[in-house]
């Protein structure tokens, strides 16, 4: 049987047009408020168009109308099944002091995994420099790190004038953008079932361990702490947070002991991945400012103990922030569902 197409289109066209106009309105403003009657009408139009599509698919091979209906039903399906009818806007402070620490704690195991990999990498780097000092050139292929600690300290402490004069802001911007790129790359490598993230974090640990061992062995521990702590106590955790996001992604890719499909697992964690990426970016902006404006200044300009104390305070605040901020008291949910008992 072939559908009476002209009559079918004549009778249903007004339904499709009405549905299209609602979809256009929602496209223009996704948060456009809708009354209950409008939602009910929208749902009815969607169901009727779906039914029309089913009839078209069964009784007609007429391609343009079917494609049109498929496109219309697809758009309406997305709106009906996803639309959150509660208008919500991004609130930066609520995100920073609520969502960020909660997301961090939710995936704390992945953070610990990054810490463990960093410690193993640091131990490897420290051991390599300790037992074979020539490995420095391989482990730390950066010109600034290849001189001996004694040379570096002498150079820094005897510097006449401000070496970063007139370049502090651009240096800070370079550091921020470079570190955020590295962090996002570490996160993105989670798609390789986490292997790429593990390698990046391990290598980061190797460099850290090698530099630390180099300065500690040479007796410049105070210089090392004064140099690295002000920005490092934020920068290193930021890289670990990016790694944490990478491991969350990897966990969803692998799905050990999770009966859901990969698509479902990824859908569940995507908001958390984004929150952790944003967290790392914010932390690295702060670290970039501190590194350019404080970390690069040494005694006698800025006493080491002052820099170390500054770093220690930052670390304490950061720990407190991730451990305590955004906690919801027991018995309180973030959104109080309105039950009949609460109605006036």
């Amino acid at each position: 049987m072939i559908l009476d197409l002209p009559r079918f289109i004549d009778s249903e066209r007004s339904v499709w047009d009405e549905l299209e106009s609602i979809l256009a309105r929602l496209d223009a403003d996704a948060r456009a408020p809708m009354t209950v009657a409008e939602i009910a009408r929208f749902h009815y139009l969607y169901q009727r168009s779906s039914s029309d599509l089913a009839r078209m698919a069964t009784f007609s091979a007429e391609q343009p109308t079917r494609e049109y209906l498929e496109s219309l039903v697809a758009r309406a399906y997305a709106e009906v099944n996803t639309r959150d009818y509660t208008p919500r806007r991004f609130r930066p402070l609520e995100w920073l002091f609520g969502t960020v620490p909660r997301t961090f704690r939710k995936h704390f195991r992945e953070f610990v995994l990054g810490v463990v990999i960093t410690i193993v990498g640091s131990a490897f780097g420290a051991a390599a420099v300790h037992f074979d000092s020539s490995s420095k050139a391989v482990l730390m292929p950066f010109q600034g790190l290849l001189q001996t600690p004694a040379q570096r300290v002498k150079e820094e402490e005897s510097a006449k004038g401000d070496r970063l004069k007139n370049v502090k802001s651009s240096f800070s911007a370079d550091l921020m953008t470079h570190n955020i790129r590295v962090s996002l790359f570490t996160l993105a490598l989670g798609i390789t079932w986490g292997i790429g993230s593990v390698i990046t974090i391990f290598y980061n640990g190797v460099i850290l361990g090698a530099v630390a061992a180099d300065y500690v062995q040479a007796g410049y521990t105070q210089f090392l702490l004064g140099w690295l702590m002000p920005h490092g106590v934020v920068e290193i955790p930021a890289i670990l947070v990016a790694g944490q996001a990478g491991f969350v992604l990897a966990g969803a890719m692998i799905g050990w002991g999770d009966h859901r499909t990969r698509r479902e697992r990824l859908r569940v964690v995507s908001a958390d991945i984004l929150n952790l990426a944003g967290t790392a970016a914010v932390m690295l902006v702060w670290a970039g400012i501190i590194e350019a404006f404080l970390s690069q200044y040494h005694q006698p300009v800025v006493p080491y103990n002052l820099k170390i104390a500054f770093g220690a305070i930052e670390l304490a605040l950061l720990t407190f922030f991730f451990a305590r901020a955004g906690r919801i008291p027991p018995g309180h949910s973030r959104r109080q569902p309105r039950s009949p008992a609460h109605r006036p």
Partner: protein
Amino acid sequence: MTPRSAPLRRHRLEILTPEGVRFGLPLAGPVARLVAWIVDALLIGAFMSAADKILSIFQSLNADWYAAANTIAFFVISVGYGMAFEWLWSGQTPGKRIMRLRVVDAQGLKLQFQQIAVRNILRFVDSLPVLYFVGGAAALLSRDAQRLGDMAANTVVIRQNQFAPVDPAIFATARYNSLLDYPHLAAVLRQRSAPALVDIALQAVSRRDELSPEAQLQVFGELGARFRRITRIPDEVMATLTDEQLVRNVLQVVTASRRS
């Protein structure tokens, strides 16, 4: 022993709704996506150049601030371009809009910001080692033409054609339909005309003005011959009809089957 085959490439993303209705979204091919990416890459370059021009006004005031602002602007444009456009334009960048492509949720749901952000962050891996080699290879091997960012974000890129239902006016015929004088003939045509053939005839009628006169003669000649093969149409009917009019009359008979 048969070798293990790679997952078959699909050209449409089929979605079955809870109401039991199935619809399909046409997946974008790698060439269209590559062209869209080239357009976007050129635009990113243009935006960067424009940002540099604007910021250079402040260079004389403070060269350090100018350099810092430039670095940040380049970073924000290169990372944020895709995110911003895909969010503001519901899954489209200028390149995708020109190529009529759109990023959509792989399960037909509404695209969320976190999906857009994740698929754009994953560009860091997809673009490795150069010119999106990893992403391109992943898209070629993936069943739904997804690069790694699409897989992580649960998205696909579809072709978005301009759809419109067929105009019912094309079924109307100002002339007298001689086929209706032969009820048995009309019944046979309704019964034996394959939906695919009717669809082609509808397409030919609705798009006749896009065809040259020679092409019109050829297309309607072939369609008329197809319909004549279904049943013998009396000579006295054919004597008064062109092939195009025959096709129009057959369509009226076949598609308006329940009309009196």
